[in-house]
């Protein structure tokens, strides 16, 4: 990836990206939600969620990222009403599930589809049989079930595998069945709890593409629970970072990526492959300028400035040599997001001049270290 041509970074949404319509109604509203689990034996209750407020608009894909135990699954179970909040309210499509009778709540759960990390398919049923399950539960007629199952298997690209059992399908195929099943009752909301965590990167990408297409074609609102920033980056319009049961940062994906505020968010961003330096640079990197000839600077392009020949102008202006070490453009929240790692002379005057110039251009510059 050395010395790549750096394409202009457009601020306009990419073609295959459809942002949530501004002003669309929120379908999921969490208002100061808390959830504490009473311990079995004596002891203090486990607080899984505390004072969480989130509003998710119709047709939006929202990523909820957090470490193990942060309360992600609890959040999902509150949204589909399998748990009741101990404080605050959860409203989905205008209904507070916690206030309904168990019977009414069951009816409402059919409007919320759920996709699981380990697929949770019935081993004794074929792909088609699994997709049929929610329809049988809803009491649909045989003819309607068959029609709908065929439709859904077609949608997820598994028409040929309809009579295979889960044991005869790959992980990615199983998750497609899981998604088709979740969509069977035409829900407004799709909850995905670590839906790609058991899959390899390539399969993950395919599943995420499928989810993006489902949102585009069916207008389903998607809540994507994950511990991987890559997943959020790929398809989420907005992201909420959950830590110890609290939302510590929230905003449009692009903004959170370009200007993370909370340390947890930053550490999640550091796990992205694009945030990592190439090995040969990382191993040579030292913290002090002593004896080093070059300083390594990371520059982030997030706006229209990238269309200007920034680097060559910088080199001319400051009369220094600039070496490109690595570079990458990704799509984050539907917008281009560029990261460039450059080497400049290591004397403090040059380094200061470079960072000052970059900052003036509204680019984010960060000195990562020095190399000989």
């Amino acid at each position, binding site marked *: 990836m050395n010395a790549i041509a750096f394409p202009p970074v457009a601020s306009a949404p990419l073609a295959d990206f459809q942002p949530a319509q501004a002003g669309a109604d929120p379908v999921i509203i969490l208002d100061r939600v808390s959830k504490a689990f009473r311990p079995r034996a004596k002891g203090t209750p486990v607080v899984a969620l505390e004072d969480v407020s989130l509003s998710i608009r119709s047709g939006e894909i929202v990523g909820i990222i957090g470490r193990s135990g942060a309360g992600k699954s609890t959040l999902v179970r509150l949204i589909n009403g399998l748990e009741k909040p101990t404080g605050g309210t959860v409203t989905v499509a205008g209904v507070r599930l916690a206030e309904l009778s168990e019977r009414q709540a*069951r009816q409402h*759960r059919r409007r919320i589809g759920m996709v699981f990390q380990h697929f*949770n398919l*019935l081993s*004794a049923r074929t792909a088609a049989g699994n997709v049929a*399950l929610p329809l049988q*539960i809803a009491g649909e007629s045989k003819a309607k079930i068959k029609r709908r199952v065929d439709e859904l298997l077609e949608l997820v690209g598994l028409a040929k595998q309809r009579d295979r*059992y889960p*044991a005869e399908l790959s992980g990615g195929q199983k998750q497609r069945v899981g998604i088709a099943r979740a969509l069977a009752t035409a829900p407004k909301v799709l909850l995905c709890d670590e839906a790609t965590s058991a899959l390899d990167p390539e399969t993950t990408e395919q599943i995420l593409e499928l989810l993006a297409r489902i949102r585009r074609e069916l207008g389903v609102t998607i809540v994507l629970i994950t511990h991987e920033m890559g997943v959020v980056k790929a398809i989420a319009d907005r992201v909420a970072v959950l830590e110890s049961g609290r939302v510590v940062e929230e905003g449009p994906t692009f903004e959170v990526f370009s200007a993370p505020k909370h340390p947890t968010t930053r550490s999640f961003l550091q796990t992205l492959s694009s945030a990592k330096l190439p090995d040969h640079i990382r191993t040579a990197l030292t913290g002090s300028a002593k004896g080093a000839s070059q300083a390594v600077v990371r520059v982030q392009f997030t706006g229209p400035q990238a269309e200007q020949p920034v680097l060559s102008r910088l080199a001319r202006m400051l009369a220094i040599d600039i070496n490109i070490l690595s570079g990458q453009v990704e799509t984050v929240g539907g917008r281009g997001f560029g990261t460039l790692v450059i080497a400049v002379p290591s004397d403090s005057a040059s380094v200061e001049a470079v960072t000052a110039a970059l900052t003036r251009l509204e680019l984010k510059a960060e000195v990562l270290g020095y190399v000989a």
Partner: protein
Amino acid sequence: MSPELFKILLMATGETLYMVAVAASLGTLLGAPLGIFLATSRRGEIFAAPVTNRIVGAIVNATRSTPFIILVVAIVPFTRLVAGTSIGTNAAIVPLTIAATPFIARIVESAIREVDPGLIEAARAMGASPAQIVRHVLLPEARPSIALGLTLAVVSLLGYSAMVGAVGGGGLGDLGIRYGYQRFMPEMMLAVVAVLIVMVQSAQTIGDTIARRLDRRTRRG
């Protein structure tokens, strides 16, 4: 072996098959719902009734820990009440069923407990009622294990049926004792044992085959 003796052997075989088949069927009819209840009624489960669960569990355990031969004798009044007599094949079915029921209940319970809890979570998220979860998820998924467990129950019942024979219940056990032991006819004793071995083997083979057919958890060619 003389034709008469052979006829007697055949009849005894029929009696044993009859006792075991009826006791296994009745035991399943009574034991399966009990097993489903035991598997789904602890705290936090879909039919949560922890107190009843514990009471039923205790009764099941008590029945299971009573030695069969003692059970047969202890419930004679009850047997008389149900079957009208305390000897013969029909009378033997009563203790056999009472022994089979808790056994099958535990078999069904453990088979259901083996079902991945994630499947129950998925069904609940779909809006399934507890009854729908049992019908569409738990029973179908537990079927292979239940089939194996029922095979075990049938094999045990074959053994028990020989025991009721010893107290006048008819069937192969009865024959073995009366002819093989009391009249000292070793060839009859041998024949009885041989028939029982064939029965156990067949039951096991059939059960294994059914369980394998039902089991879709592994890939097959």
